[in-house]
Structures are given as C-alpha cells and as structure tokens.
C-alpha cells in the first residue's frame, strides 16, 4: 500500500537531549490523525521535521513516494505539505484580508512556476482574482467581519483560524496543525475545529493535528499517535489508544473526567 506520508527512523537530537527517537509513521491519504503527548514528548519536533523547520539527525521522510528529507520548508510547502503554528504566524501590520492576499499572491507565483502543474483553483487567471479569493477564504472561515483589522490586534481564536486559513491557501495535500485550539476558550474550540475540519476536507487534505485536549482528539481524530519521551508509544484507532493503559499513565496522566468522556465519545463513534 502506498502512503501519502511516511517517516522511517526519524530522530532528532539537541546535544545530549533526544527530542525525537526512531519515529516511523505511515499516513494514509484522507485520514485525520491526532498527535498527543505531554510537553516535550516530541510532537512538535515531529511536525517541525516533516515540514522542514528542523532537519532530522537521522531517518527519512517520504511524501508521495519521494524523499523530502533534505528540502527547505518552501520546497516542502510547494510539494503539498502545509502547516499552522502553535503561535500563529501572521503578518501583524497587515489586515486579515491583506494577509490572505499576500498568501494567494505567493500561490499564484508558484502556480505559474510550478513544475508539478498543481494549480489551485482559487487563483487569478483560473477563475478568481487575488482579492476575491482572499475574501472567499475569509468568508469560508467566518472571518469576514475582521477583514480590515490588522492581524496583530485580532483575538486569539481569530488569529488561530487566520493562521490555518493561510496554510490552506496553498491547497495542501497534507495539513499539519500545531495545537489548533490552544489558548482558545472552551466555548470556541469546537466551533474552530468544525470550521477547520470542514475546510480541510473540502480541499481534500489529509490532516495531522497536535492536541492536548482529549475531547478534541476523540471527536475529530480517526487515529492517534501517542508520544512519550521522544518516542511513539501507541499508534492506532482513537478509542483504543485513549484507553491504552500505558498511554493513560504516561501521556494523558490525570486527565480524569475529560479522558473518560473522550474514550466514551470515541467508542460511541
């Protein structure tokens, strides 16, 4: 079986510290995978390695059968892997609309120069001018009312959504989200995830998301990778991983009621 994304023996050390050790994962197209683990377990290091922010000390990363390990973030993005960040990476002095206009502008330039012939449909010359494409994306994420506000003054949840919208402008085949609901109120988190998952599915993106909230994981992930001390200690269907004794002891810890609800929710589903 061919996987859209595959890592083999991915390892990253910082001096004497091993942030990720021997991570081998195979990701099927169209799947939604939750990455869980305590702080420092290696989740973000894994995302950073796959997206080119960190180069692995050892191991390889394959995307659609091609080795992308040595590529720069921009090259990986052009191939079809995009990401959002735990701290949203926006253009603070530009408005929400301008942020997306810049993003679609880059997509346009890359589409013209792309050797892969991937032409996103929201691209000028292919049906939609830059500004309209940006407005459509804002509308899709329910952000139209913030269109003329500078990104630096937007509320936390809006910044998260805009960051994810920026990542989606490149029409990725794999979308990696680093804690999409962190710093967001509990009332907002499901609304944000609903919008994100809807948009990602509409683009046909395979989604991997780092998350500490087990309610979110159990509701949206089909499969869970549990990280502990730089390694994956459990990999499987959401309900079974969340119910795993080792995962409950080392990863979820005293999550108590939230974990019970999460497991029940995943089992019901």
């Amino acid at each position, binding site marked *: 079986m061919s996987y859209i994304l595959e890592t083999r023996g991915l390892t990253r050390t910082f001096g004497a510290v091993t942030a990720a050790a021997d991570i081998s994962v195979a990701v099927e197209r169209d799947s939604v995978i939750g990455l869980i683990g305590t702080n420092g377990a290696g989740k973000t290091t894994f995302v950073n390695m796959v*997206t080119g922010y960190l180069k692995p000390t050892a191991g390889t990363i394959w995307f659609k059968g091609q080795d992308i390990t040595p590529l*720069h*973030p*921009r090259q990986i*993005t*052009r191939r079809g892997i*995009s*990401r959002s*960040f735990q701290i949203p*990476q*926006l*253009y*603070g*002095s*530009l408005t929400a609309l*301008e942020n997306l*206009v*810049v*993003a679609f*502008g*880059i*997509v*346009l*330039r*890359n589409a013209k120069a792309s050797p892969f012939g991937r032409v996103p449909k929201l691209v000028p010359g292919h049906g939609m001018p*830059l500004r309209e494409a940006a407005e459509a994306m804002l509308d899709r994420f329910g952000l139209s009312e913030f269109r003329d506000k500078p990104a630096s003054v937007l509320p936390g949840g809006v910044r998260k959504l805009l960051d994810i919208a*920026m*990542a989606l*402008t*490149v029409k990725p085949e794999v979308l990696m989200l680093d804690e999409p609901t962190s710093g967001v109120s509990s009332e907002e988190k499901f609304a944000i995830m609903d919008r994100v998952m809807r948009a990602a599915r509409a683009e046909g993106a395979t989604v991997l998301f780092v998350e500490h909230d087990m309610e979110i994981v159990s509701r949206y992930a089909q499969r869970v990778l549990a990280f502990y001390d730089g390694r994956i200690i459990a990999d499987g269907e959401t309900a079974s991983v969340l119910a795993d004794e080792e995962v409950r002891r080392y990863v979820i810890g005293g999550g108590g009621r939230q974990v019970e609800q999460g497991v029940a929710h995943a089992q019901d589903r």
Partner: protein
Amino acid sequence: MTAENRTPLLLLAALVVVLVIAPVFPQWQFLATLALAKGMTVLGLLLLLRTGLVSFGQGLYYCLGAYAAGTVGLHWGVTDVFVLLLVAAAVSAVVAVLLGFLLAGYRGIFFAMLSLAFSMILYGLLVKVSALGSTDGFNVAPPTFFGREIAGKDSQYGMFALTCVIVFLTTLAMHRYFQTPLGRLSPAIRDNEIRVEYLGASVRGAVHVKYVIAGVLAGIGGVLTAMTVGHIDPEMAYWTTSGEFVFVAILSGTGNVAAPFVGAFIFELIRTYAYQYSPNTWQMALGAAMLLTILFLPAGLWSLYERLRKV
C-alpha cells in the same frame, strides 16, 4: 477610488503641473532636479525599508551609476542620455546581483553595516585611481538627446523635464510593482519571514530581487545627479552620502512612492537655506528637522498628508 488607485493620476497631475510652472522659476530648476535625482535613490531605499531592511550603503550604487556613465563619456565620448542611463542601470544591476548573493542572507544591523562597508570599499578604490581623478573626480560632458544638448548654459529646464519624466515613469512602475505578488511580499517579509517561507516563497530570493531594484534606482539617481551637476567625485560613495539618503527616507516616510521626492525636495530646501543664512551651523538645522520629524511625524512627512486627507 482608493488611495492606491489614485496615485497614478496624482503622479500624472504632478508631472504636468511641475513641467508647466517650472519655466516660471528657473532659479529653482537646478535644486529641484537634484532633489528628484536623489529622490530616485531614496525610492530604492523605500523599497528596502518596506521589506524591513535599512541600507547605509546606497551611496555605492549612486556613485557607481554616476562613474559608469561618466567613464563611458570620458573614454568613448558617449553623451546620449538614454545610453548613459542604460549603462548606469546595467552596471548597478550587475554589481547588485553579485553583492546580493551575500547581503540577502543578512538582516538588521548586519545588512546595514555590510552595505556600508561595500560603499566605503568603492570610495577607497576611487580615491586611489588617478585615471578617474582620484579625490577630485572629473567633469561629465553635458548630456545629449539625439545629438542635441538637453540643457543649455542658461537653461536647466531640459534636464529638469527629462528628470521629471524619468521619475514619473519609474515611480509609476514602482507603484505597480508594489501591487504585484512579489511587491506585496515586502511588508510580509518585514513582518514574518517564517510564514512567507511556509507559503512556498523564497525570502532570500525576494530580498535579492528587491536589493537589485534598489541598486538600479540608486544608479539611475547617480547618473541623473552627474548629468545635472556636471561633475562626479568619490564623495558620492562616502558614508555621509548614504546617510543622507537614510535621512531623507526617514523624513519622507514610506507611505507612498511619491514621498521620497517630496522629502528630497524639502531636504534640499532646508540645506540650501540653512547654508545660506547660517554657513557655520547649517547641520544644526538638518538635525533639528530630523528631531522634529521623529518626535511629531514618526511615519514621515507623508503621514501628514494622510492625516489631512482623513480629516
């Protein structure tokens, strides 16, 4: 109509107005031409500033453009204005492409100081080359347009008009450029390079292109100055000249492509009058102007226009 869309019309109106009224004020034509030529260099600096980069070395290309054109005139007798402009732009572009490979990887104080270092290297070379007049420099022959002198002994108008047209076309092109995807990358790179890379664009490549454009604009500014003054010397690459461009850029603000020319004209006015009425302390007047700008108009003179427009 948005401010962005209004700019070309305003530029065209400004061109027509200055070309019509300039003959009435012949005594101002030299100063205005010089201000426009320097404004061209500052326009390049505006592009870099919008990208979050400060260059203290635009004197390098300002001097290089002037010397390239001057040398072609000196050794081969070429005086045609378009040929000289092309030579200045081409030489500046080639040097900027080469230096850009190094400079595009630096930011902040390192970019500023490295750019300054290169301009001082050129200064150091020129003062040693006696064939190019050493510290005295050399005179530049009056420019011609299809064999005819543009500016006569009594009139500066031809050179002024030519400079106005070149400035108009360049400013229009830069205005358009800022609306292209590559142009829009300037504030994006200034704000967040990580996001630019994670959208699939090369920050280094974009900075390199912008550095080359800024170099070419400075080169054109240099040759226009050379043709206006009729003389060039290594001082054009000296750090004080580069500092003057940064001064004008701060005075002008980065709000509009026309701002550098307004700022350069006001700078020349302040300097001329300060020198005339207080020859020993004229620098104080410039210092005071800078102080007042930073205190009351931190976004530059252009922000005053923006404020008035909103009122």
